[in-house]
């Protein structure tokens, strides 16, 4: 008997569906957390990060 025979007997096809549910669950939790209101200030300051790197450039336009 080979490994694949054993695996065939195990009814593995439900696993992807179970994993799908788990994935969707964790995802929903993250979405909930991200959207929660008490993080507004944190989000706003994070969003400004790219604009605060102190790179100055006065001569950026050409002809």
């Amino acid at each position, binding site marked *: 008997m080979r490994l694949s025979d054993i695996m065939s007997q195990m009814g593995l096809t439900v696993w992807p569906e179970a994993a799908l549910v788990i*994935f969707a669950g964790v995802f929903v939790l993250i979405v909930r957390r991200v959207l929660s209101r008490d993080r507004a200030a944190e989000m706003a300051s994070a969003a400004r990060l790219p604009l605060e790197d102190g790179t100055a450039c006065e001569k950026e336009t050409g002809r």
Partner: protein
Amino acid sequence: MTAIAARHTSTASAAPMERFVYDDSIVRKFLTATMVWGVVAFLAGLIIALELVAPRAAAWEVNGVRPFAWLAVIFETSWLNFGRLRPLHTNAAIFAFAGNGIFAAVYYSTQRLCKARMWSDTLGRLHFWGWQLIIVCAALTLPLGITSGKEYAELEWPIDLMIAVVWLGFFGVNFFQTLRHRRERHMYVALWFYIATIATVTVLHVGNSLAIPAGLFKSYSVYAGVQDAFMQWWYGHNAVAFFLTTPFLGLMYYFMPKAAERPVYSYRLSIIHFWSLVFIYIWAGPHHLHYTALPAWASSLGMLFSLMLWMPSWGGMINGLLTLRGAWNKVTTDPVLKFFVVGVTFYGMSTFEGPMLSIKSVNALSHYTDWTIAHVHGGALGWNGLLTFGMMYWLLPRIFQTKLYSTRLATTHFWLATVGILLYVIPIYVAGLTQGLMWRAFDQSGNLQYPDFVETVNALIPMYWVRVIGGTLYVGGSLLAAFNYFKTWQSRPAKYEEVVHEAPALSRTYVDPPPPPSRLSGVVGIGHKGDVWLQGAWHRVWERLPVKFTVWVVIAVLVASAFEIIPTFLIRSNVPSIASVKPYTPLELAGREIYIAEGCYTCHSQMIRPIWAETKRYGEYSKPGEFVYDHPFQWGSRRIGPDLAREGGKQSHDWHVRHMENPRQLVAQSIMPGYAHLLREKLDFEAIQRRVGVMAMLGVPYGEAVKPGRAAELARAQAAKIATELVTQGGYPDMADKKIIALVAYLQRLGTDLSKPDDWNPYEGFDGKKAADATASGATGGAGGN
């Protein structure tokens, strides 16, 4: 000259200030490489677009003269023809142009977002030169026909190893060490996208490229048939996600706010965008294989997940576009924003269309047609191309510390590129639909309306010409960019100014804000813990810890992949074996190698779907069990020529030889390249032994053919037999030792096993008694190889 740009972080103002300088020389290197390889990749694309119209142009005659006869050089020269150059084009576009563009973006933005110089200048340089070396190796090997034959992963194993070292060892280490030494606690979302890119591409590259070498330039995929196809599209699909999407989203979330001078419209949306890609995209790979011999549940799952992708992708597009709120007037004057706006719009179009193409009924029509080609070029030229060029025009004045040479030229480039894309994409959509509909058209008596495949090719030629024009515009635009780039570079200062920045180091004793209290009353301890967990403060912790974060992303990717892959690999019923399917003879194996080396799979599929129009045209549909010895699989993804899965026995040897020599001798309107060199070049019989040995190692039951010298002996005997038959059919003499004989042997075998008795002998007719022993000692049974 030295300037100081000081700033303070709110979290750790007590820590002492540190001074640092960003390394922009590495950004300059990568950006220059992006420009150079971009032109190369687009030119290669233009050449292969020409390949498909050139045969007809060359045959065009006015008053007995053929003004374009010279064009024949591109489809009759072995290393210039479509099958060889198409992999070069795709690899150059993805790994050389987009790849270097990604690196430029990552090196520029990571330093600034982390408030830290890249961890190691040396690793940066090793990364740069290593990557360019890989590209040069690719550019040398692919036209020579050195290829693994797996789409978008054609490079042979020594180059694959180099990729792994440069990607993870140089780039990955340098990037993660920079994250660890950052001076900004929160990792901005662009960095998350980069993390996912680096981690996932490593997993994909290693997983798909597992192969056993059979010489320096030849290896065989450890997977066969259905499994190989599954791995290939798991890789191919996720490479689109994690090489052409996530890094470019990181780029968008960084450079778009920079160019618009306002923060991203919704930071929350960008986080959701990120996690939805990590959680969902990886599941959607099997939609590339609808109606093929892949199990139905896998492709249905792929379809479901593909449809779920639609929402976050559009969320991302809208997020990008709304970042320009209040700045739309700037779009009219600033070419950078023009590139970004149209690039992001193409992202929206591609991500709408992708899930649509994954719907089985749409896919039944679109698959194998030019529709796919139009789809990927909307993505590659529109989303990746325009975003890269937008970033480039924004970076040029900054990294070369001068003015952009010409804004006007940049604007012209924008228009050339946009019109070029439209002229490419629209006719190719039409071509895809036209051909798809022609393939399935029946007349009133229930017969195929266009039984002759070449008729369906013929209808596309006008569209192919418009594509050549569109491609020319796009190439023209990129040449303007190269000129603009060069002139800007010329006006750089004699010595670059090095701005010194200041920021405090992150304190090592940082503690997160306490988790929220449980909102429950009167339940046991675990209930409170559960409620605290449900409120999700752990996500904040993830957000600032690169290692933890990476580990979770990798786990998500691996788990999703495992659940897709393991069942296909291990469940027997997924690949029912067929007793009459036997391994290729040594000569056929050598022929198959020529098929792979010439890139025939870029034009021919070997997969008949269970659709009436297909079984009517090509014969019995393909079964998973027919491919158990196919290392690698050769199902293909585009039918520029007809499917070859049941080619065996359809034509005489003589027909094949003359057709390969010059297809237009037999099919006047054919656009297939000529392969006259295969009639001249000698087959290396001695090399076959090693390959049979590797196949046997992979579980293909070759029996006594693995004995030293035996494979070559069998191959010579079969070649002599075919060469004799060829002469009796009125064909060319003296072909027995030429490559063409092996190819013909392979083509004549294709798809024929299914109709043979279970105990047939592949060596019958050229090896008498001895071959019967070979069969008895192992070449029976069809269940091996998985």
